[in-house]
């Protein structure tokens, strides 16, 4: 009976604990979500691109990677591939030139709604074939029509398949019509 009572109290007490521990709305607000990555297969010696999709919460925008002012914080992606993989560069989409009610005379270069960042990955020649997980984070500063919010980052991870490197012994190409 006592055990049952304790178990009944548990959810309430845990809820209280969670509320007490996470009482800072500044930290808990999220303006950008990671929506997933395209499937990527990397062959050693042949870099491959992966597309990473993000969504900006309705009513907000974030600076593009090349905002029009040096004062603005650009959106950047940092990847931490495992030791057998390497990041060969990140390609950001162009932002949209938009003006906002707080200053209709100035256009800012921003991402809103959905945007896709491409990353080029390569595999070490000694990499074993298989699946690897790449971790990273997107750093951004979000603003609404009348306020800006502290810079934040959205953590992300995606899988990359490393395929066996071709041996280089290619025979005579076979016609697709021959069966």
């Amino acid at each position: 009976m006592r055990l049952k009572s304790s178990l009944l109290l548990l959810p309430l007490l845990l809820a209280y604990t969670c509320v007490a521990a996470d009482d800072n709305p500044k930290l808990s607000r999220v303006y950008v979500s990671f929506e997933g990555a395209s499937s990527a297969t990397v062959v050693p010696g042949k870099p491959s691109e992966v597309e990473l999709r993000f969504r900006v919460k309705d009513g907000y925008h974030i600076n593009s990677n090349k905002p029009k002012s040096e004062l603005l914080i650009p959106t950047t992606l940092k990847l931490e591939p495992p030791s057998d993989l390497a990041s060969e560069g990140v390609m950001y989409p162009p932002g949209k030139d938009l003006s906002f009610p707080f200053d209709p005379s100035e256009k800012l270069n921003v991402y809103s709604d959905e945007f896709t960042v491409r990353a080029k990955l390569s595999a070490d020649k000694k990499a074993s074939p298989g699946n690897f997980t790449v971790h990273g984070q997107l750093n951004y500063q979000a603003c609404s029509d009348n306020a800006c919010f502290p810079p934040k980052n959205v953590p992300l991870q995606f899988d990359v398949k490393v395929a066996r490197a071709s041996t280089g012994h290619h025979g005579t190409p076979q016609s697709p019509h021959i069966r």
Partner: protein
Amino acid sequence: MKRNLAAIIVVAVVVALMLFAGVRSSHRPRPSGPALTPSEARGKEAPDFALKDLQGKQVRLSDFRGKAVLLDFWETTCGPCKVEIPWLVELQNQYRAQGLEIVGVALDDSGPANIQKFAKEMGMNYTILQGRDAVGDAYGVIGWPTTYFIDRSGKIVDADEGLVSRAEIENNIKKALSIS
């Protein structure tokens, strides 16, 4: 017996979690008084704090007691703040003689040199302080600009979250100065 032991363990774990949460919450450095939110701040005493200005001199909010204070939380990368700042410059000139003191708290990671450069470019003619998150948290600041209007006795007469019109700012300044 086993059931009692299980119950004790469950309760002990929960109490430990609660204590952890409570300790974590109470260890967050905050200026005096409970945290405010702009929407519920009217009539409450403005929490006092001490921050350094851009010359490194310590300034307390209570140093301005006897004056009406417009306390503005802002940041150099904030577009709406750049719209508001020229208005604040004008309003400081307009109402200085009547006892208005505008205090801008820069919640900015870029350092005092960058804030100073920005302030010079914008012609900011009022007190600028180097903010700390604890002060922003005490005032419930989750975005910029966030503006509090404090009367001569240190009571909050109004607060705005985000950019509002120049006319609304001026009306709130008049409320803080008790002029119509």
